[in-house]
């Protein structure tokens, strides 16, 4: 459990950011996007779906079934207004914390 928890803190933030930028995406698409943008992050696929469902329950994202280009049903996720607000807050906090940690690492 603890291994997943380490990632879970930032996973929703990444999901929100990706969905905000790229528009509706299915779960696999989200993993692919995260992996292609970052060179060293690998998404734990096992924790992605529970996270997506939790975020859906919390109303940050919404999902609907639609067809992909090669004609398969896929569950597409999309940011909601609440999700955008959350993204803004989390992003700010993340940047602030990252900057603070950077400062400590630099000066210590």
């Amino acid at each position, binding site marked *: 459990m603890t291994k997943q928890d380490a990632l879970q803190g930032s996973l929703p933030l990444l999901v929100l950011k990706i969905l905000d930028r790229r528009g509706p995406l*299915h779960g696999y698409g989200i993993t692919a996007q995260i992996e292609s943008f970052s060179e060293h992050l690998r998404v734990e*696929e*096992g924790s992605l*779906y529970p996270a997506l*469902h939790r975020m859906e*329950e919390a*109303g940050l994202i919404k999902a609907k079934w639609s067809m992909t280009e090669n004609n*398969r049903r896929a569950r597409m996720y999309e940011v909601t207004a609440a999700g955008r607000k959350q993204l803004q807050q989390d992003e700010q906090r993340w940047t602030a914390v990252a900057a603070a940690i950077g400062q400590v690492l630099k000066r210590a």
Partner: protein
Amino acid sequence: MSWISRITNVFRRERIATDLDEELRFHVDQRTEEFVRDGMPRGEAELRARRRLGNALLLRESSYETKAAAWLDATLRDFQFGLRMLRKHPGFAAMGTIILALGIGATTAVFSMINAMLLRPLPYPNSDRLVSLYEPNPHIPGVPLGAFGPMTGDFFDWKKESRSFSSMALFTTDSMNLAVNNNAVRVNGSRVTGDFFQLLGISPAIGRGVVPGDDDPEKPEVVVISHALWRSRFGGDPDVLGKKLLLNARTYQVIGIMPAGFAFPSVDEWFDMNGEGGEGTDIWVPWVMTPEEKASRNSGSDVFGIGRLRPGVPLSQAQAEITAIAARLDSLHSQLRDWGAVVEPINANVIKMARAPMLIFMGAVVLVLLIACSNVASLILARTNRRMQEMTVRTALGAPRMRLVRQLLAESLCLAGAGGSLGLLAAFGAMRVISRLEPEIPRLNQASIDGRVLLVAAVVTLVTALLCGLFPALSASRCRLDQVLKGPGSRSIKGATGRLHRGLMVAEVAISFVLLVSSGLLMRSFIRVQSVDKGFVPNSVIAAHIQLDPRYDRTELQTAFFRTLVERANALPGVTAAAAIDHRPFGGGETFSLVEVDGAPFDEKQSFESRAVTPGYFEAMHIPLLEGTGFTDRDTPNRPPAFLVNRSFAEKYFPGQTAAGKRFRYHSGNAHSEWFTIRGVVGDVHYMRLGTSPPPQLYQCLCQSGADAAYVLTRTSLPADRMGSDLGKLVRGIDPALAVADVHTMSELASDAALEQRIPTAIMGGFGGVALFLSLVGLYGLMTCFVQQRTAEIGIRMALGAQRRSVMRMVLQQGSKLAFSGIAIGLICAWGATRFLTDLLFEIKATDAPTFLVVAALFGGVSILACYVPARRATRIDPMTALRYE
């Protein structure tokens, strides 16, 4: 919002699961495609893709849990599983359901009785503010408080001086003769003071009620009638106001009709001490009092006082105030009386009479419920023993202990739920039957299944489920993997649950024993009451009541009327003897007197029942004249009054002597009458209750004392309705304004008098029977289980040459050891518990040894019988099969 969707998702589980599966499959397929594109063979790609996603089952579970309320889902599944288990074991399910239905049904029935009789408020606005006012006479102990209405003089003083009451009213319960088509019929009437209707908070449906000022003797006489009387007498005519009624040979003007159902004072809400009522009141008239009557401190006993407390004033404050006023007034009125005053909630009378038996029933029914619970607990235990394997597998798969307990509790809750619903139905049916069989029990006909009863039934069901499910669940979930997996023959587990099982059984037998002893005691007491010598021969005696009206205001007029009536009744065809008495046997409404016997110290705590009878009464009732002479027609108002006493009186004061010729005098407060001479002694008669021995009794000649109402008694072979109509004609022939009422055979009245014994006896008998049945079923089940568990052992014993007889003895010994420990504990418990029955028993001690012994023998006998069948089964065990069984 999210909560609601999570709860609704529980019921859409299938749909959500498919969605999840599809989503994950899509993911795996995409990943596989990616690996294939990178040049991996398809089979390996798919495997890698799956592995990367991780444990699909776990993933699904955790995703699902975010979407649905997991605990609710698990609970529902527990219940589904529980129901499935019950369906798979119909015998167990039916047994458990029936046992619990008996227990829960009995509890619900008793509670709904208590609810109807004791807890439900009277149907008047803020009826919790209504109180009764009494003025108990400390010189007449042992008489119910309800018999002491306030003296009118005292009442008006309290009313004037007290501040705790918003109003106070005085009323009577009167029998009145209402003229209908030149004939008279008897109605229940009530004379009320002006505050009466306003105090109860009920206004008439039509017209007005009695108001202050209506008691002005100058005003025309007015009457308020009941809805029922309005329908029967006036055909529901809406223009009834101002119409005339001829009541007690006087004209009254109708001023109001009460709403349907209003009948206060009625016996339901108010045990009227006259015993004449039975139904409700139909007529209310203003109580017209002269100034002397208003100030009287010597008024009769048919008076009742009620009050309404001011908002916020507690009962204790009102009581303190009234006590203070009464004390102050006592010193003002020259007579030293110290009668005091009592304020009580208005339905305290009913509650007081019903409380003791109700508490006993409640206690008994809780015991029955406990037996049912322990019985079902044994059933569940026996079954969970057989399910050890299942529990072990579940534990091995990682089910936490709580989960197992919850699962087993859900099962017992299913069982209790089924039992509870069935029990509720049974209780409802039982209430209908009881209220049909015993319509005399006040307010019982109103017993129904209301919200409160449902709530209690639900709580009882829950508690029952916990009681019968928790022990087995805890003991079964305590299973230790290593020991169970070692094999089905593992001793330690069976040892633990077996001990619990046997403990339950012993407790069950002990409780049943207590109940059975209690019902045995009541039954013996009931038989004693039934066979008690009433002191007269009730068969073929018919009693009918005649109420004179205020025209008969002199003793001469009263005695003349009753003398004529008895003479003519004697001459009726089919009548062998006729007489009259002012208070008939089992009629209540006694006259109590304080009497000092010449030569014996005056005991102001000893009150005497006294009655007025016509000459010929003792002959008509077959009451023996033991000494001296009886009353004769020469005993008239202008001759010295004649008195007879009963045997108890004579034996108490003149043991070994003749009582005839001895003297006594009446006491009233600190005044006393002249000395009177006793003319003779007659046999003891049970007038009040069958369940007590007759106290000293005094008779006076009705032809000397007079009476404004009396029962005419005829010994005849004619049926009661025929006799009633003959007597009716006779009375009308003497005075057409008078009516005959309350016509009953004496045997009927005597059996009604046993009512207060019959009901507890029947109910406790029922409980005892149920308890006996349940504990025998339990014992039988336990022994069957015991034989089953030891099949292998018995098989080995028999293979080694054990005789069938010794096997049987072993099983019987095991069973009777339990039964007899239960009986022994039960004996001790019953010894302590039956003392609560003392008030209900007649001529039987609460620790009556024969009852205890008979019940113990009965219990021992039938419990051996209950063990016999499993024991026989044990002797039939085939050693070979038994050994293969392992």
